[in-house]
């Protein structure tokens, strides 16, 4: 599939967001590694769509629960589809592998992915997370790393059918949450401030059914998970 040119606004929004994340992580003594420049992550897809396929490695993610002789890394793959006419997101799957390096061995401790499809399936929450067993199939040498991750000790097999509703967890949201979870309050507050305007520039996804459900009749004054299945009733 051939790389194609996207509007500079789109590339630069992703670039700016990733760079702010990188700065925040480096401030916490971590490293953000990219496999491929952003420009090469946009490829032509079917029906006048564009696929964005992006890999990021967070090396040395601060983790208060790990002893200092171990290191937490996070491998992320974002597979997003944009509609070329509007440059809005129609699909997004962001895969995460949480990896621990211990005694020179790298092992996954948790694998999950956040999923969204504009043509949402019945019985699936509009945006959801699933715990899975599969490692992201990617050679870490593209990041300049020598390790090959091993699968988790503990299987998530029984969890796989469970889909937990989430908000928009496209790439930017995932990085946002990682910053909140791991970088400490002060650093997160700075990051939050710096990405506020960048978030508005990123491609958006349409969530009409969910939005309508949330703003619906006066009887519905809650934020319950049923809203995340509103597309099934539309």
């Amino acid at each position, binding site marked *: 599939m*051939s*790389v*194609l*040119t*996207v*509007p*500079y*606004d789109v*590339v*630069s929004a992703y*670039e*700016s967001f990733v*760079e702010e994340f990188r700065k925040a992580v480096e401030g916490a003594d971590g490293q953000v590694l*990219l496999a*491929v*420049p*952003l*420009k*090469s992550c946009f490829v*032509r897809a079917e029906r006048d769509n564009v696929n964005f396929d992006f890999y990021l490695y967070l090396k040395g993610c601060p983790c208060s629960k790990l002893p200092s002789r171990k290191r937490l890394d996070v491998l992320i793959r974002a597979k997003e589809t944009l509609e*070329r006419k509007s440059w809005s997101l129609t699909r997004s799957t962001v895969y995460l592998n949480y990896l621990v390096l211990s005694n020179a061995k790298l092992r996954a401790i948790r694998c999950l992915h956040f999923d969204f499809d504009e043509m949402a399936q019945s019985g699936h929450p509009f945006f959801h997370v699933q715990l899975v067993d599969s490692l992201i199939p990617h050679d870490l040498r593209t990041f*300049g790393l020598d390790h090959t991750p091993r699968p988790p000790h503990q299987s998530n097999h029984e969890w796989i059918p469970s889909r937990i509703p989430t908000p928009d967890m496209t790439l930017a949201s995932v990085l946002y949450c990682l910053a909140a979870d791991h970088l400490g309050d002060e650093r997160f507050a700075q990051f939050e401030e710096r990405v506020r305007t*960048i978030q508005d520039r990123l491609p958006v996804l349409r969530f009409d059914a969910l939005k309508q459900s949330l703003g619906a009749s006066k009887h519905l004054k809650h934020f319950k998970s049923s809203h995340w299945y509103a597309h099934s009733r539309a």
Partner: protein
Amino acid sequence: MPTKLKVVLFEDTESTRSELVKDLRQQLRGGEVVPFVDFRETESEARRMYEDRIADILQRPPYASATLLLADRNLAKSPNFLGLSVNAVAGAARRLAIPICSYARQQATDEYEWRGRWQEGHIVLSYETDEEMARKAVLAAKGFATLTSNLPKALRDKSNDSPAKVLAAVLGKPEYADKIALYSVGDQNRLSAIPPKPKEGKRQRTKRMACFLGYWLWDSLLRYPGLLVNETAAASHLNIAVKDFRKPRIRAVFEKALYRGPFADPRNPQWWRGILDDIVSGKGVDDGLALARKAVGGKIDFCRCSVDRSRPAGYYCIISKKPVSLENSKGGLSWLPRGADLTRISNPQFEEFGPWLGT
């Protein structure tokens, strides 16, 4: 831009000096070229450090208010300044916030451009002919004059609270401030530009900021493709063979992206990469090649990777100065500006220069 530019020339060989003065005057057309030869000093003044003496002399007629200093790197034969090198002149220039270009009148090697002296804190001109060097020096002088003249307005806007935002405003491209900021990551050179105490006046601070921004623009943003792209990098990014990209009808398709800011060089044009992207994506085509074929027709080749000619390129090797593909090159090296995402090093070059290039 101010109407009259003044270039002060430091050249210790008389014959070279008169040739250069002639070439500079031809390029400046109405500006002033003042060779650094005639000055008076008292005996006690002449016993001081060279940098102090030069700084004082430069503040007196006929040298005062210079737009640019142009200095030979070896000034050892200078009367009254035996053994002088460009370092003392550069020190004086830094103190007075006057931009300086230095040169060595030997033919530059092919390796000069990429390994060249960007750490020195001033512009080092490569040498081809006297005429070409004079042309580049005048380009630099005009560029710095434009920056100095446009800076006050950019600095009055309080939202321009970083060098990247200031430069983006001066270039008329505030939307590229984030990208420009990525050219400063890891750059320690800026620390030496901070004015010494006691605090300088506003005018002097503006001149100093113009120097800093000018060096940054010349030696980083215009050197490493990412925000701006030279001809080969533009062709590679657009996926148009360089020889085809040179054709006027194809150039015309991308005219709107041509860089016309400070230091714009008609012999070595550059383009705004962001505007190139928008021109292509605005037409609903995949790349510049598709747009060129649609707009101009005829046989237009894709831009071939210089390592594997069966592959389209897309990137630019800073050492070979040729188009290169992602798969046949290395990027993201720690010494490359982070904003220069189109700049890479081809694998053969990387193997040749091995450990020096790092990761």
